[in-house]
């Protein structure tokens, strides 16, 4: 066994319970249990001291400890809170491997040389993790699995003593660490126990051929571990590349033209970084810090990876929006001193690859897009709108307009059934003008709770002009979103009317009217 491979393991006890307590804002000393399928899978030391154990039913655990805080298992939460611990460990010794949330292994040789001794490294790591708000035990050994068991025991195994350290452990321990064992490991440990093999040392004493021929592949790897034979070392992760670009603005920016220049150079810096990482950015965060310490942030989401020009445009629009907003309260009180672009979401550059021959009409599409982007650059981000078909009943809500460059997401799914949708044809002009619908006596018409007119309509008054109706149809009640408290109550209905014209040859004008909140609105003109 060479001394070259020394592995250090950091084990945070009861990590799911610790993470759950942190998520709930409880102190570390409070009793917490994490349950999965009604069984306790982890509990804090406070809970354990009053008799809560793994495998207990939830109700039984609550009975043993009435003030127990019980939460459901959530691997994402565990990983999220463990990320802070990993960051702290990375600060002391880089390239740690996370076996599971709560367990980290790292090669210790270089760190031991740097800090003086292995003990020094262990002390520093324990302190760092404690500063991050977690408790941990540190173990060291020659091999990775042995180091994990050493950490559980809180021991430093001297070089070459792996097998001796393991030999005293119970055979049941073989299955305690799920990240190191195969699927049938618990059955194997149980079988060995029933065969009278009570310690790992006894298992290690068996000959490998016997183990391999009787218990299968997973037993062979368990046997290798029991003998302390060389295994893989920790495979640390590369720290993710920092995809951002920062510009300290000197002099501070308070005008849009200066911001445009800054945006251009910043975009070029960001794209150098993205290019080196081989990715394209689909979500860009623009941060700005003003001289008075205000921080402004906005995330731009894009349907396609941003080009350098598109990035520069977005920085300019954003700063334009911040510096020239009409609402004086929202305007920053001081010029911008720091600008930061961050690629929040990236896609691999393969997604950017243009097809070799180009799709049919793709070149035209790109050309059209470039022209639209230029107009967007002239007029602003919201000026160019792209329509998408959306779901709905009225003609206006069935089209969703999204600014060019944003992901075109319809507000409602057009493929769902929309009973009560207006049939074809749709009005070609959409308006929203209040009008008066009157009966023959000149009284205004309502839609009753039964969805009928209060009287037959005869006249329509639009902006002071009075027209007689030639024909009308409806009302067609619209019964939607009655459950939504934000939506104003009242009945909604639509009506088609045909106005009579003065000249005999003229067919008049067909209109679509909408009744809502006890008023009539001219919604569309058929022409």
């Amino acid at each position: 066994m060479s001394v070259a491979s020394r592995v250090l393991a950091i084990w945070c006890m009861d990590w799911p319970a610790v993470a759950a307590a942190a998520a709930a804002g409880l102190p570390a000393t409070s009793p917490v249990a994490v349950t999965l399928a009604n069984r306790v899978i982890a509990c804090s030391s406070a809970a354990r001291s009053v008799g809560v154990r793994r495998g207990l039913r939830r109700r039984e655990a609550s009975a043993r400890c009435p003030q127990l805080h019980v939460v459901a298992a959530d691997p994402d939460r565990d990983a999220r809170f463990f990320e802070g611990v990993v960051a702290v460990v990375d600060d002391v010794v880089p390239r740690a491997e996370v076996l599971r949330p709560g367990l980290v292994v790292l090669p210790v040789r270089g760190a031991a040389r740097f800090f003086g001794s292995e003990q020094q490294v262990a002390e520093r790591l324990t302190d760092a993790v404690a500063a991050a708000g977690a408790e941990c035990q540190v173990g060291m050994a020659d091999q990775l699995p042995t180091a994990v068991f050493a950490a559980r025991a809180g021991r430093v195994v001297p070089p070459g003593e792996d097998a001796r350290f393991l030999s005293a452990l119970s055979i049941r321990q073989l299955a305690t660490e799920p990240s190191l064992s195969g699927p049938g490991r618990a059955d194997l440990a149980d079988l060995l126990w029933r065969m009278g093999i009570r310690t790992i040392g006894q298992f290690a004493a068996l000959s490998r051929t016997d183990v391999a021929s009787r218990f299968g592949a997973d037993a062979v790897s368990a046997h290798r571990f029991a003998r302390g034979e060389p295994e893989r070392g920790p495979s640390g992760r590369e720290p993710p590349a920092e995809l951002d670009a920062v510009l300290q603005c000197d002099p501070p920016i308070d005008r849009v033209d200066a911001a445009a220049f800054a945006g251009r150079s910043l975009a070029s810096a960001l794209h150098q970084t993205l290019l080196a990482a081989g990715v394209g950015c689909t979500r860009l965060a623009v941060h700005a810090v003003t001289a008075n310490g205000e921080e402004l942030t906005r995330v731009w989401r894009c349907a396609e990876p941003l080009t350098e020009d598109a990035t520069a445009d977005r920085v300019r629009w954003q700063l334009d929006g911040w510096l020239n907003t009409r609402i004086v309260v929202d305007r920053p009180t001081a010029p911008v001193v720091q600008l930061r672009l961050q690629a929040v979401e990236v896609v691999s550059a393969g997604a950017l690859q243009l097809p070799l021959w180009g799709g049919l009409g793709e070149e035209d599409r790109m050309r059209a897009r470039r022209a639209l982007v230029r107009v967007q650059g002239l007029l602003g981000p919201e000026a160019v709108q792209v329509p998408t078909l959306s779901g709905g009943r009225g003609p206006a809500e069935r089209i969703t307009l999204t600014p060019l460059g944003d992901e075109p997401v319809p507000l409602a799914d057009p493929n769902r059934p929309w009973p009560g949708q207006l049939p074809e044809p749709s009005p070609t002009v959409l308006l929203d003008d209040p009008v008066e619908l009157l009966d023959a006596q000149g009284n205004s018409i309502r839609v009753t709770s039964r969805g009928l007119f209060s009287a037959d309509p005869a006249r329509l008054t639009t902006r002071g002009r009075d027209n007689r109706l030639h024909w009308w149809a409806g009302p067609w009640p619209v019964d939607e979103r009655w459950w939504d408290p934000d939506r104003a109550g009242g009945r909604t209905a639509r009506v088609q009317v045909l106005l009579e014209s003065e000249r005999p040859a003229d067919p008049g004008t067909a209109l679509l009217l909408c009744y809502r909140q006890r008023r009539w609105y001219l919604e569309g003109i058929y022409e």
Partner: protein
Amino acid sequence: MTAMLASEQPHLNRADQLKQLRRQMAGISEASGKIGSPRRGHAHVDDLLPDSEARLPVPQLLASVLPDALPRGAVAVLSGARSLPLSMVAAVTAAGGNAAIVGQPNVGLLAAVEMGADLSRLAVIPDPGTDPVEVAAVLMDGMDLIVLALGGRSVPMTRARAVVARAQQKGCTLLVTDGDWQGASMRLKARVSGYETTSDKPGFGRISKVRLEVCAAGRAIRQARAV
């Protein structure tokens, strides 16, 4: 082409050859000057452009009014019913062209979809700012059809000429609505000639069809009417 011609007809004398080449050159300049430009990527000019390259498809409605389809690079002034520009947008986008609607915030795009428009090839610029003509000129780079609402303004000849030259060079057709464009090659006027309802009795039925009448006038076409 010259080389091919020479090899095929070796016994033409020099004068005849020159005359024939001149005739061909005249044909080329006529084709590219009048009917619109060749698109980018077609640097070598055939003596007659293929039909689909030089013209835009028109809706069924206009088939009898404009038998020669809609030339690229033309400027048409549309007035009257709004269905007309929408149906032209629908026809062009359905055939794979790109279109933009400038300065019409109240346009009912759903009607265009019902006429067959492909919304992924359509962009809307509801508020083009103080100079909609400039926006249209920028858009000509990439679009096949632009519907430009002038908001009651009239574009003078001097300004119009520069934009028309650009439209012809880029092969983009400009439809001007709600305003006047001096020197437009085509004027189309649409009015609603009747509504079809599923029942004539008030209180019953619904509007099932809008009938349009289109009048066309202009240099390029003879006076025509269609219903």
